[in-house]
């Protein structure tokens, strides 16, 4: 360890003819190192930087060199990882200068230095936090154009899954050896035709009586935070060769893919070594998404999807994925577009472009290059746009792709969803051929259709279940729903009575109660709601309201 005893060094150099005084100041930040802070030079178009390790008696140091991506002799690897906690930074020595990196990357460095490369020498590796000058927004945006080429050209893309806590990490080799049994478990369920997610499903012997920490280690592999990050989909999908690293352990990507696909831990009925049932939560996202996109890009599937189709599917699949800034929602997908085709998408990729501009350009590209007649996904994307409190500046037809509230709010379902429960009720308001065009300005979209009616009366909003913490809150919500419905029904009868074209009371009421259920009247078990069910509902409603009011007052 190098320790300097003063915070600064001043060096005077006196030339023969003239006096030059040079002050060589070190940074005060870390008193135990005497290395200067790393500074980036400017990259020319088409250039990237690559990291190579040097292990010496002084420890692990790194060299950062600038190269031309197009150079035919160039061979390199790339890293895919989550930046993780930004709270702590640690020092890395790069070109004999000091650089600060975050914990997850720092933990990867010794293992990256010892990768088995092709041939004898280790290939240099591309790591975004170090190889891109994160302080230079212009450079960041220019490097994004190269992502498709870069990850496709890398000899191997290494995925760093991060080290678990030491008491868990020690079980990682065991956890990896058990992954084939997770795969076996999934296959046996399929063969026995047991429905997926069916709880209390017995598991294969090899998974019984394990240390709890072994399960934690398996979850670390199969539900790693890495799967949740927006960027990783393009990084891993484009990789010609994909290898997973967890500490010093390598995991074969086919094994991991099969295990991720088979994993249904929350349905397992299995005891650990202490005799306790192991408890699992359901997964927050679908870890298969990355593998699915990779299979398409690597042409392992029988159908082809063009780039706009791919981006449309990704936009719909990734609403559960996370990224730290709104721009990353789109930038993290653009790597799937070939470098030479990026301009054709209309996404201008200027550092100063607002989120609204980026999202609008992206949505325009997706909606004009996918046909609303050829894919169900087109209208599903369109219907994402109607969340409340959208990001400022977005046109009404552009979804706020960064709004993750919808994943936690089951109440934000599209109208299509109401019809999907019963195939017979599936909605199709128009069978005409959909026509979408550009408008006169970037904020406009033109869709052919018919304007046919106007809203005259709006009813009070449906009550929301609020968490008051009181144990009467469920009863209060039920009371508010019953009161609300009674009010709506009374207003409805009054409003529709004064019509030019009179209908019978039965017809009016039928319009009412069918709408209240989105015409979805059949339940599991075969019961169907009818006009009589609603008569009973209205009769019972008043009684129940009184019962609840008395209950709450107590």
């Amino acid at each position, binding site marked *: 360890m190098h320790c300097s005893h003063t915070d600064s060094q001043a060096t005077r150099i006196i030339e023969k003819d003239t006096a030059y005084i040079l002050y060589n100041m070190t940074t005060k930040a870390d008193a135990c190192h005497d290395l200067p802070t790393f500074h980036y030079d400017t990259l020319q178009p088409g250039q990237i930087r690559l990291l190579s390790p040097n292990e010496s008696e002084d420890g692990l140091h790194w060299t950062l060199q600038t190269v031309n991506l197009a150079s035919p002799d160039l061979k390199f690897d790339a890293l895919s990882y989550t930046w993780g906690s930004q709270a702590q930074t640690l020092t890395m020595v790069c070109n004999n200068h000091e650089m600060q990196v975050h914990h997850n990357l720092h933990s990867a460095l010794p293992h990256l230095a010892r990768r088995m490369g092709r041939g004898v020498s280790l290939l240099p590796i591309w790591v975004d936090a170090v190889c891109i000058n994160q302080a230079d927004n212009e450079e960041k945006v220019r490097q994004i154009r190269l992502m498709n080429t870069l990850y496709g050209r890398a000899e191997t893309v290494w995925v760093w899954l991060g080290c678990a806590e030491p008491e868990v990490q020690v079980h990682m080799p065991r956890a990896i050896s058990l992954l084939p049994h997770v795969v076996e478990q999934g296959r046996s369920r399929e063969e026995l035709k047991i429905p997926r997610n069916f709880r209390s499903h017995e598991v294969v012997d090899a998974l019984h009586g394990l240390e709890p920490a072994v399960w934690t280690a398996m979850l670390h592999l199969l539900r790693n935070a890495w799967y949740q990050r927006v960027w990783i989909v393009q990084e891993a999908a484009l990789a010609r060769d994909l290898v997973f690293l967890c500490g010093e352990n390598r995991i074969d990507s086919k094994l991991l893919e099969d295990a991720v696909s088979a994993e249904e831990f929350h349905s397992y009925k299995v005891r650990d070594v202490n005799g306790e049932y192991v408890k699992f939560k359901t997964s927050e996202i679908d870890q298969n998404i990355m593998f699915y996109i990779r299979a398409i890009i690597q042409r392992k599937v029988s159908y082809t999807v063009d780039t706009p189709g791919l981006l449309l599917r990704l936009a719909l699949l990734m609403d559960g994925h996370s990224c730290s800034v709104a721009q990353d929602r789109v930038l993290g997908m653009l790597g799937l577009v070939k470098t030479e085709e990026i301009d054709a998408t209309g996404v201008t990729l200027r550092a100063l472009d607002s989120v609204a501009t980026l999202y609008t350009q992206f949505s325009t590209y997706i909606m004009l290059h996918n046909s609303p007649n050829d894919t169900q996904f087109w209208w599903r994307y369109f219907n994402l746009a109607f969340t409340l409190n959208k990001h400022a500046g977005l046109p009404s037809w552009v979804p706020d792709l960064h709004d993750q509230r919808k994943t936690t709010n089951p109440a934000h379902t599209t109208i299509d969803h109401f019809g999907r429960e019963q195939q017979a009720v599936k909605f199709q*308001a128009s*069978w005409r051929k959909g026509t979408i065009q550009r408008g006169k300005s970037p904020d406009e979209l033109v869709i052919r259709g018919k304007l046919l009616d106007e809203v*005259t009366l709006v009813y009070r909003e449906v009550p929301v279940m609020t968490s008051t913490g009181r144990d009467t809150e469920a009863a209060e919500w039920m009371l508010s729903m019953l009161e609300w419905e009674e009010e709506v029904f009374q207003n409805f009868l009054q409003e529709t009575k004064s019509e030019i074209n009179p209908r019978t009371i039965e017809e009016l009421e039928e319009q009412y109660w069918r709408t209240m259920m989105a*015409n979805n009247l059949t339940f599991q078990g075969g019961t169907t709601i009818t006009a009589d069910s609603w008569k009973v509902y209205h009769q019972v409603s008043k009684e129940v309201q009184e019962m609840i009011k008395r209950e709450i007052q107590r």
Partner: protein
Amino acid sequence: MLTAKYIGSESDVAKILTKQALLTRRQLFNTAHGRFGFTTRGVQPGDIVCVFHGASTPHVLRRAGQRESQVYQVIGDAYIHGLMHGKIDLEADDIEAEEQDIVLV
């Protein structure tokens, strides 16, 4: 659960209440032509009902800009009774209104 206490968990009444819970954060409305439906919360009188060619559901629009400019904001997808299943015909529909290019902003 709560419903069991007051109305029996298997009763039709309980089922109806479960369905209605799905309407949370939506708003019901009447229209000039006697239609009834629901859409995104925040819908207002004067908003326009539209059916885009090829769409699975109707949508509700709001005039934006000056009255003459004829540009619209989309408020939301909608359930409107009677409009959810169009005539199965690629060339024509039975909606009595002029078809037009609708400009969205």
